[in-house]
């Protein structure tokens, strides 16, 4: 049973560029959440997708956008990259409505903005 998979593993971009990160949830899960983890910090919530809609959003600008596909996989898009966007981007999947609602995380995509 495959867990949460993310691609690519590493990415290097320059300021002003755009990037797309991808996530496939754990089998049987229908909800995907994205987090940003800056160096030396805990993960910060970006947004959550369920039924192909953004259900909740954290304190991130509109440059951060996402999408969920019918197969529950998800993309995170970041436009007009800034140096401060350099971080580990984590995808977590869960089952909506499940008691305890454990979020399972992928290994992350390391984004470096130069």
């Amino acid at each position: 049973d495959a867990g949460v998979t993310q691609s690519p593993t590493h990415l290097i971009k320059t300021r002003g560029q755009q990037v797309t990160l991808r996530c496939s949830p754990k089998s049987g899960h229908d909800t995907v959440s994205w987090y940003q983890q800056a160096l030396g910090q805990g993960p910060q919530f970006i947004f959550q997708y369920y039924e192909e809609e953004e259900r909740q959003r954290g304190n991130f600008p509109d440059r951060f956008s996402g999408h969920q596909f019918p197969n529950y996989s998800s993309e995170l898009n970041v436009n007009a990259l800034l140096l401060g966007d350099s971080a580990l981007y984590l995808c977590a999947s869960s089952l909506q409505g499940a008691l305890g609602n454990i979020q399972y995380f992928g290994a992350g995509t390391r984004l470096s903005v130069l």
Partner: protein
Amino acid sequence: AQSVAQPEDQVNVAEGNPLTVKCTYSVSGNPYLFWYVQYPNRGLQFLLKYITGDNLVKGSYGFEAEFNKSQTSFHLKKPSALVSDSALYFCAVRDLGGSARQLTFGSGTQLTVLP
């Protein structure tokens, strides 16, 4: 609003000794509480959770956590530490009384187990 505090950036313990990693939380309603572990260049791995019921929760790899409502704490414990337990540990909370669907994480505690 929901928040988590991990007051110790670093915890050092000798192998074989008991370990404790501290966590306190703030929510308006009842909390879901979680502990995750992160190894270098890896994502977060789920260790254990508290929803309701017994205040002592047992999880993976011999870890347990004690929920204390009066002190709003959820400390992670292990009776006998292993060198392989060395990693970054995160406490997280979700407020059942609010509209938040996301987890709020603490800043993390680096655990080092010395041989």
